[in-house]
């Protein structure tokens, strides 16, 4: 008789832990990195099933000698690469200044994207200017690439009189419809499924614009991630679904989101969504997979899921101290290097760039940021200058109803 077995061992609960905590030696030995150029580049109309192995490998273009190799080499012109490099360098300079400003008490909060600049910088280059992005708080490079004024970004951060969000939003929660940059939410994940709705609308109208959505690997656990993939799959929405896997969600390593059990890209397989995993610190690789995904979307071939494999070199935010939960210099040991240095070295190796050029670019970026900073600070930093208090009561609805009007009177503004 084939009766149900009982256990031979008692059950036990497994709680995943990262390989190294503060004080432990840094350990990236579990990380398997495919060589640059190895991943095949299928046709954009290949089926999700046919391309499913791309979810388990790593698309890489820049090899150890900083040469661009393999079928994913996007063959960018030097001018394009320089433009991308510039976006990354300006972003880094911007981050550094704003982080410092928060430390000086000039604003309440800031978040850097250090180490992850290639993701948004390369994507901005690969997308059309009017494609709509639904970012998290770590894609400031999109705004920078698309020419949104640095000073307006700073005004938002200072909640000053010129703040485009009128003092209502936490710093870094930018918005600019004109730059295809959706209003950032503090609630993780919500934008991911909204992006699919936007893409459905674009398809419904026979438009040509596509949507590009971002989510952190930690936030993939939210239901909105699943909604996004379901709706994108069912309605074949023209959207690029980006998971930025920077290994950390505040203090939780990617295993707490399931990253030890499979890749985040492989989540796409179950929805029939072509999914790629890309070296997120390889500007050229990010550009190439984005172009592939965008071409698919534009050709009515539907959504693509991209996992950007990168590392959050900065603290989560100015409220965070990573020294409490990970080895101090883990970022420096990240096996996939730094995105700015890698693109710089590739340009230098191609004879298109020099150390001096790079220093000049860094200086230009610093000057640009400093000038914008002066301008914004002249308007005012947090608490020194702000929009009219009346603004607190506006825009709750298009027309302010009586009860909110009356509350405004109650406050006497």
């Amino acid at each position: 008789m084939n009766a149900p077995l009982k256990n031979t061992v008692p059950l036990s609960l497994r709680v995943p832990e990262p390989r190294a905590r503060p004080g432990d030696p840094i350990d990236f030995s579990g990380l398997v990195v495919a060589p640059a150029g190895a991943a095949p580049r299928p046709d954009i109309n290949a089926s999700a099933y046919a391309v499913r192995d791309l979810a388990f490998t790593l698309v890489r273009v820049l090899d150890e000698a900083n040469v661009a190799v393999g079928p994913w080499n996007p063959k960018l012109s030097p001018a394009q690469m320089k433009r991308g490099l510039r976006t990354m360098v300006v972003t880094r300079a911007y981050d550094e200044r704003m982080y410092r400003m928060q430390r000086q008490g000039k604003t309440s909060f800031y978040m850097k994207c250090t180490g992850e600049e290639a993701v948004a910088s390369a994507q901005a280059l690969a997308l059309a200017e009017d494609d709509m992005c639904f970012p998290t708080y770590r894609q400031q490079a999109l705004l920078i690439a698309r020419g949104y004024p640095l000073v307006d970004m700073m005004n938002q951060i200072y909640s000053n009189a010129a703040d485009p969000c009128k003092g209502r939003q936490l710093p870094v929660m930018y918005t600019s419809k004109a730059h295809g940059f959706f209003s950032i939410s503090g609630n993780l994940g919500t934008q991911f499924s909204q992006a699919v709705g936007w893409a459905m609308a674009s398809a419904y109208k026979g438009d040509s614009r596509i949507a590009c959505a971002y989510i952190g690997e930690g936030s993939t656990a939210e239901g909105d991630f699943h909604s996004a993939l379901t709706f994108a799959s069912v309605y074949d929405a023209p959207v690029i679904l980006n998971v930025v896997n920077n290994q950390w969600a505040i203090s939780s390593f990617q295993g707490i989101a399931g990253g030890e059990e499979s890749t985040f890209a492989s989540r796409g397989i179950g929805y029939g969504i072509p999914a790629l995993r890309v070296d997120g610190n390889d500007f050229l690789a990010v550009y190439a997979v984005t172009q592939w995904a965008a071409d698919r979307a534009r050709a009515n071939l539907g959504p693509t899921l991209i996992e950007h494999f990168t590392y959050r070199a900065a603290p989560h935010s100015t409220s965070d101290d990573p020294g409490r939960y990970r080895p101090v210099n883990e970022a420096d040991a990240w096996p996939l290097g730094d995105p700015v240095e890698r693109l710089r070295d590739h340009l230098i190796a191609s004879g298109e760039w020099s150390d001096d050029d790079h220093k000049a670019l860094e200086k230009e970026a610093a000057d640009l940021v400093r000038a914008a900073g002066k301008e914004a600070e002249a308007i005012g930093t947090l608490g020194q200058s702000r929009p009219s208090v009346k603004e607190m009561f506006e825009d709750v609805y298009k027309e302010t109803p009586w009860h909110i009007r009356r509350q405004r009177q109650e406050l006497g503004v």
Partner: protein
Amino acid sequence: MPAMNMIQALNSAMDVMMTRDPNVLVFGEDVGYFGGVFRATEGLQKKHGLTRCFDAPIAEGGIVAAAIGMGAYGLRPVIEIQFADYIYPGYDQIVSEAARLRYRSAGDFTAPLTLRTPYGGGIFGGQTHSQSPEALFTHVAGIKTVVPSNPYDAKGLLIAAIEDDDPVIIFEPKRLYNGPFDGWHENPVSPWAKHPDSEVPEGHYTVPLGKAKVVREGNDLTVLAYGTMVHVAQAAAVHAGVDAEVIDLRTLIPIDIETVVASVKKTGRCVIVHEATRTSGFGAELSALVQEECFYHLEAPIARVTGWDTPYPHAFEWEYFPGPQRVADAMKRVMEG
């Protein structure tokens, strides 16, 4: 003018708007080919095409999110949540996103969606097909909350909601889909066709959001009601023999404070009725408002007649429901107070 029941009136509102505005589209669970479990979207797919009225995955959060994205694009999506009891998986997207998008982006992006959802008891559906969760939305700044009580208003309010540039939630009392149910549940419900508010123009018109309606004039006390309870209140007034003024709020947020205050100042007494559970229900807000605005006119305590603070129980629907007897009792108590 044709006589319409509430379902037909709602259907007509969507049809009119889909015809007028290519940016209006309808989606939700089972609303496409099938026409919705309450048939509110019947025929819309056939008439307007597959991409303008279609089925959605069973993911209320995804439905709301998609509508927000569409709204941000520039469309005017109308979504159906199959039962109000199933709105909670979409709660975060409604509360954190739709309600706050205009504010947080300073008007850069907006979410002009309309969310329709059948609510309240009426189908012996037990705790998950009978709820009245309106108060969970009236607390949230940035959304408008609407409850029609008859076919004419249902169509006019739904068109106004679709044209409104803010997110609007319409709670449709399923007890009223087929007739003006007055709470005397032993009696057969008379069809809408016999009721004047079933005369519904075929074309476009609106009933403005934020405007209540005095549906019964009276001098003794004021009843604040919406949805099904508008009819129950009228039946109760007759039953109690009280010269009650019954106000159909129609829109809960923003509330039509002028109509409410004028009436209570006139009558000096107030009974608030709703089917939702009592504690922290919308009746609490109404009571607080009336007390704040009319304190010196009140001659008796404001009374609330509501569903009990329990889930909606399958076998005790009529003990749970605040029917005309309970409302009449409260009226008498308030008259004595």
